[in-house]
C-alpha cells in the first residue's frame, strides 16, 4: 500500500537532495566545514575511546605541565591544567557539552519559534501584535546581557544557560517563521489547498510550513554556532557550566590565572571553540547559498 503513494514522494525527495547537494558542494569551503563538523561530532560520540586520559584525573606530579610529545613522564600533547588534568582529554570531552548545548538551543528555538511564528502569522490581529512586541522586547536587550539576567534568575549551570540563550535567540526564529508564513500564505497553492477543504492545522503545518523551512534551516545553522559561542562566553563568566565540567569556556575561565605562565591551558580550548564555530559558519554560508532561491541561478 505504501509503495504506491511513497515512491513518487521518495524519488522527489531524492531529486531535491541531489539538487541541494549539487549547489552545496559547489562551495569547497562549505564541504570542508561540513567534513570538519562531522569530525567534531564523531569526536564527541567516541570521546571515551579517543581521549587519551580521563578528563577528571588529576596527575599531581604533572601540574601545569607544558605540551610534550614522547616524554616518558607527563606525556600530554596539549599539556595539563592547574590541577594536572590532561587538556586534550578535557577538550575532547568538552566537545560533547558544546555540541549538545548548541543542538538543544537550536531545537528549542526551532520548535518554539515555529509555533509562535505560525500562530502570529495565522491569527494576525492581537495575537500577532502581542507575540511580536514580546519578541521586540527581548531583542532590545543585547543577547549576552539578557542571558546573564535570565541565568541570574534561574541560577548558574549549563542547562539554565541553554534555556537563557534559547530565549534570547527566539525572536529571530519567530520573525522568520512569521514573515515567510505570511509571504507563502498568499500564494496560489495555499488557496488551492483551502479550496480543497484543508483544515487550519493542515494548512499551517503540512501545506505551508515545509515551504518556510529553508531560511529557518539556515538560521538554525548560524544559531548553532553562536549558541556554542555564547555558551562558552557564559561559561567563561562563571554563569554557564560549572567546574569541573570540561566545557570550553569554563576551561578558559578556570585556567585564566595561568594564562601567562601556562598559556596552553587557555590557548587550546579557545582554539577548539574558534575551529568548531568556524566550521559551522562555513557550512552555514554554503547552506544559505544552496537554499536561498534568490541567490540561486542568478
Amino acid at each position: 500500500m505504501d509503495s504506491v503513494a511513497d515512491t513518487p514522494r521518495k524519488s522527489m525527495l531524492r531529486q531535491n537532495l541531489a539538487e541541494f547537494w549539487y549547489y552545496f558542494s559547489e562551495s569547497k569551503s562549505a564541504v570542508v566545514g561540513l567534513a570538519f563538523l562531522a569530525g567534531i561530532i564523531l569526536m564527541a560520540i567516541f570521546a571515551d575511546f579517543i581521549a587519551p586520559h580521563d578528563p577528571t584525573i588529576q596527575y599531581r606530579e604533572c601540574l601545569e605541565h607544558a605540551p610534550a610529545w614522547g616524554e616518558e613522564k607527563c606525556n600530554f600533547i596539549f599539556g595539563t591544567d592547574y590541577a594536572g588534568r590532561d587538556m586534550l582529554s578535557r577538550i575532547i570531552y568538552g566537545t560533547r557539552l558544546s555540541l549538545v548545548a548548541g543542538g538543544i538551543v537550536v531545537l528549542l528555538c526551532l520548535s518554539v519559534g515555529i509555533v509562535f511564528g505560525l500562530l502570529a502569522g495565522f491569527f494576525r490581529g492581537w495575537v500577532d501584535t502581542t507575540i511580536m512586541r514580546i519578541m521586540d522586547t527581548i531583542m532590545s536587550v543585547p543577547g549576552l546581557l539578557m542571558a546573564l539576567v535570565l541565568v541570574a534568575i534561574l541560577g548558574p549551570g549549563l542547562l539554565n544557560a541553554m534555556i537563557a540563550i534559547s530565549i534570547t535567540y527566539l525572536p529571530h526564529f519567530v520573525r522568520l517563521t512569521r514573515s515567510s508564513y505570511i509571504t507563502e500564505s498568499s500564494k496560489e497553492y495555499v488557496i488551492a489547498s483551502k479550496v480543497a477543504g484543508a483544515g487550519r492545522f493542515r494548512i499551517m503545518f503540512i501545506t505551508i510550513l515545509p515551504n518556510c523551512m529553508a531560511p529557518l534551516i539556515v538560521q538554525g545553522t548560524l544559531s548553532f554556532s553562536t549558541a556554542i559561542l555564547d555558551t562558552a562566553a557564559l561559561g567563561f563568566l562563571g554563569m554557564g557550566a560549572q567546574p569541573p565540567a570540561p566545557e570550553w569556556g569554563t576551561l578558559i575561565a578556570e585556567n585564566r590565572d595561568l594564562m601567562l605562565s601556562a598559556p596552553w591551558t587557555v590557548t587550546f580550548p579557545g582554539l577548539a571553540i574558534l575551529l568548531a564555530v568556524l566550521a559551522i559558519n562555513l557550512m552555514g554560508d554554503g547552506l544559505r547559498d544552496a537554499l536561498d532561491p534568490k541567490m540561486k541561478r542568478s
Partner: protein
Amino acid sequence: MFYFVLKRIALLVPIFFGVTIMAFGFIRMLPGDPVAALAGERDMTPERHAEIMLKLGLDKPVWQQYLDYIWNLLHGDFGTSVLTNRPILDEFLELFPATIELGLTAMILAVVIGVPIGIFAAVKRGTLYDQGIMGISLVGYSMPIFWWGLLLIILFGGVWGLTPISGRISFLFDVETVTGFLLIDALLSGEEGAFASAMHHMILPTIVLGTIPLAIIARQTRSAMLEVLSEDYVRTARAKGLSPLRVYGLHALRNAMITVITVIGLQVGTLMAGAILTETIFSWPGIGKWIIFSVFSRDYYAVQGGLVLIAMIIMSVNLVVDLLYGMINPRILHTSS
C-alpha cells in the same frame, strides 16, 4: 518623512513597556525571598523584614508596584544600589563614558576598516583578494572574543610586552575627571604622556571589541555592494565615462550605504554584549564590568537599572539609525503621504 518619524517613535512605546515589565518582573522572579534579595541582608528579624517591605513598597498590590516603578523611572529614579547605597543612575552615568569611549573607538575601527575592505572585496569579486578578505572576516565573525582578548594579552602584553593589559591609563597619572572620556580628560589635564598612555591602554580592548563588528560590517558591505553593482544605474554611471572611484565610491556606495547604515546601527547591541566580556578581561571600568559585578554581588537593583538603561540606549540608537536610514533613502525622505 514626518509620518515616518512619528511611526518609528510610536513603535518604541510598546517596547519601552515591554522592557520595564521585564525588568520589574526580573526582581520578583528571583529565587527566594524578594525582600531579602533586594535588601541584601540575611537573617533579618521579622520587624526588620516588615520595615524593608514597607520601605520598598512590596506590601502594595503588584500593579501598583509596577506603576510606582514606572513613575520613578520617568523621574530618573532607577533605584538604589544595595552595595554602595548610591542611586543606580549616578553609578551608571559615572561609568558609562568609559564604555562609550571604548565602544566608539571599536566602532570607528570596524567602520573605517570594514567598509573599505567590503567594497574592495565586492569590486574584486571572485578573486584571491575577495576570498582572502572573506575568509579572514569569517574567522573574525567566529571568534570567541573573550579568548581573543586573552590571546592578545598573552602575546602583546606577556610575550612581547608591547601594550598594557588592563585599566584605562597608567597609575602614574592622576587625571581629573571632567567629561568622563579619558582621552579628552587626558588632553585637558595637560600632563605630559597622559594622552599617550590612555591611547596605549585602548589598543587591545579596541581591537577585541571591534573584531566582530568589523567582520560583520565587511561581510555585509560586500554583499550590499554586490547587489548594487549589478544594478542598471551603475552601468549608466560607467556609460557617462565616470572614473571607477566615482562609479564605485559615489554611485554604488551611496546606495549600498542605505543597507550598511542599518547594519552598523545593529552593531550597537553587539558592542554592548561584547563590552561585558571585553571590559571583564581588560578590567575596563565601564558598564559591562559593572553589570557582571552587580550580578555576582547580587545587587539586583543595579542589574535591573542597568538592563532598562541599556535597553533604552539601544532603542534610541536604533531610532536614530532608522531616521538616518530615512534621511539617506530618498524614497522615504521625498515621499509626502
